[in-house]
């Protein structure tokens, strides 16, 4: 008994002690390789003269200089700022407004909420396809409004290089504003009922109650919503591809489509890597302080 038992007991003890680490380590290793090592590889490639194939000869900042001397990159950056700003503003205004309106003891709240949020379940490709049709310069809204009698109405933003980026904003806001509504509605519902009652006794009407008491209390929801939207905006790729294909020309290019084009269409790996690294830096500049404060906050 003892002879047979001892190694088994020892094995059990060993597993008891180390099993959690044994289970976690392959997953952690995968994360180390597929996130950290891959990032490191991309960063390294961005300093090499890689073209169609990886080439490990370091060339310093040449690829970055290349990116920054490409007019297309400036278009992408400009579009990113325009899109991010308007996308965040549009989603926040609509989302906060709808959350407050839905907070007024609406009998059909469940159904209305479902309607407001369903675009979030769709792929950006589906959304892009739908809006591409609605905004179609000849058969879409333009024709609809002309049919109402406004013969001179023209709406061709989709093919207008100056305006095309705003069509991406329109479709993006349509898809994501319900998400902000859901986040804010949850925030509003988390406010202690007694505080709202106290405000009613203090004589504050609904407008003042929301403006000076409830909304300031859910300031963290503003922060996290804006961060999430910014994150979505920087990564936006599918919507642009489906709606405008980056065009007309490269008028609606964004860093994400720029990177894809250089990596998979033009096969200039080094340049693509350099633009990817700059995207990563932008995201990190936003996410790292936010995550840090979130993790610190939840540790308390």
């Amino acid at each position, binding site marked *: 008994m003892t002879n047979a038992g001892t190694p088994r007991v020892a094995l059990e003890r060993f597993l008891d002690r180390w099993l959690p680490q044994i289970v976690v380590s392959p997953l952690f290793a995968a994360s180390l390789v597929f996130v950290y090592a891959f990032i490191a590889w991309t960063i390294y490639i961005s300093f090499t003269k890689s073209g169609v194939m990886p080439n490990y000869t370091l060339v310093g900042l040449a690829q970055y200089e290349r990116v920054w001397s490409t007019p297309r990159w400036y278009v992408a950056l400009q579009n990113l700022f325009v899109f991010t700003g308007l996308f965040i503003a549009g989603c926040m205004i609509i989302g906060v407004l709808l959350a407050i309106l839905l907070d007024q003891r609406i009998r059909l709240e469940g159904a209305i909420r479902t309607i407001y949020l369903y675009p979030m379940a769709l792929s950006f490709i589906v959304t892009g396809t739908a809006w591409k049709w609605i905004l179609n310069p000849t058969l879409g809204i333009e024709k609809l409004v002309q049919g109402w009698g406004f013969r001179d109405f023209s709406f061709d933003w989709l093919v207008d290089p100056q305006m095309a980026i705003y069509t991406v904003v329109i479709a993006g806001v349509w898809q994501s504003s319900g998400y902000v509504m859901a986040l804010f509605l949850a925030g509003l519902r988390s406010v*202690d009922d007694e*505080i709202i*009652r106290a*405000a009613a*006794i*203090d004589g*504050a009407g609904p407008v003042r109650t929301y403006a000076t*008491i409830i909304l300031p*209390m859910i300031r963290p929801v503003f922060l996290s919503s804006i961060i999430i939207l910014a994150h979505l905006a920087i990564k936006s790729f599918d919507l642009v591809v489906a709606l405008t294909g980056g065009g007309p020309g490269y008028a609606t290019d964004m860093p994400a489509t720029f990177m894809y084009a250089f990596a998979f269409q033009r096969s200039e790996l080094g340049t693509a890597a350099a633009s990817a690294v700059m995207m990563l830096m932008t995201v990190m500049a936003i996410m790292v302080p936010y995550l840090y404060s979130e993790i610190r906050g939840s540790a308390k």
Partner: protein
Amino acid sequence: MAGVKLDRVWKKFGQNEVIKGIDLEIAPGEFVVLVGPSGCGKSTLLNLIAGLETLTSGDIRIGEQQVNDVPPKDRNIAMVFQSYALYPTKSVHRNITFGMETRHIGHQEQEQAVSEVTQLLHIEQLLERKPGQLSGGQRQRVAMGRALVRKPDVFLFDEPLSNLDAKLRIEMRTEIKKLHQRLGKTTIYVTHDQVEAMTLASRIAVMDNGHIRQFGSPDDIYENPVDLFVAGFMGSPSMNIVRGRVLKNGSCGIEVTDGEGAIVFPLPEALAGKVAERTGQEIVLGLRPEIITHRGAHAPGSNVFAFERAIDVIEPTGPDTMLVFTLGGSEAIGRIRPGEAVAVDQPYRFQVNMDKAKLFDPASGIRL
């Protein structure tokens, strides 16, 4: 100064009747405590008075004004909440002045009012802090300051002390009583704690299941409970409820039988008259723990009766010792002075003051 009058007040949430036709008249300057077990409707009743819930039917008057459809801000009331409900993003100062800001009261007057209440409540040094930086007791004071500054006709308190620890709770209880004595404002106070009710109230309304069971002074509620519910709810430890049978051979008594034998509790004349018609019938005898006690504790001339029972458990509390024994098949408690010679399983000879005994109808629970 204004009183509060409720007339056949009903409140339903869907099919659920929470307040079932309550009448209540509170005189100006009174301190009325609504007390009852959780779910009895006491907080809902307070919210109805505040205008934080809409009436289903009935009438509420504050002073001379019918307020059924008047928003809370126009009822001239102030309220202190269980969670204090301080505005977390505003400083203590802004918390106190917020109500005055919404009413467009002049800056000078605001400052004047703030300095009055902060002195009264000793919170001058907290004015610039945020509620998150305050202790429970300090938040409680700020919440009271916010209510006081309104100079309302009626103060409403919704279990304001239940989130405080035991020591602070007693301190604040005294503070609230002092404030009421000083300001003399009509106050309605909700609690589930019968000690709080007894210590604070000028009158207590005992609520159960949407009804007011009894409305009277603390003494009255304690000494003359209308039924078994009120008798059992008020007092700690609660009244001993003993089932017995009315006997009559010469004088009148209640026979209580259990495994240790039968005891006949002789009734004084005042009580005997009430059961004259019930000879041989079942009856419920109510004895508060403090009237079952050691020898020589009662005032001379009272109707003292002695009986023996074996002690099951001894619970010293310091000033008193509680003795748990069995009487008529249920557990009973007597309260004796510490230092008496008692031992578990040994018989002890109690003396009970039968003048203070209560009799209840076993079917309806109504006191006879």
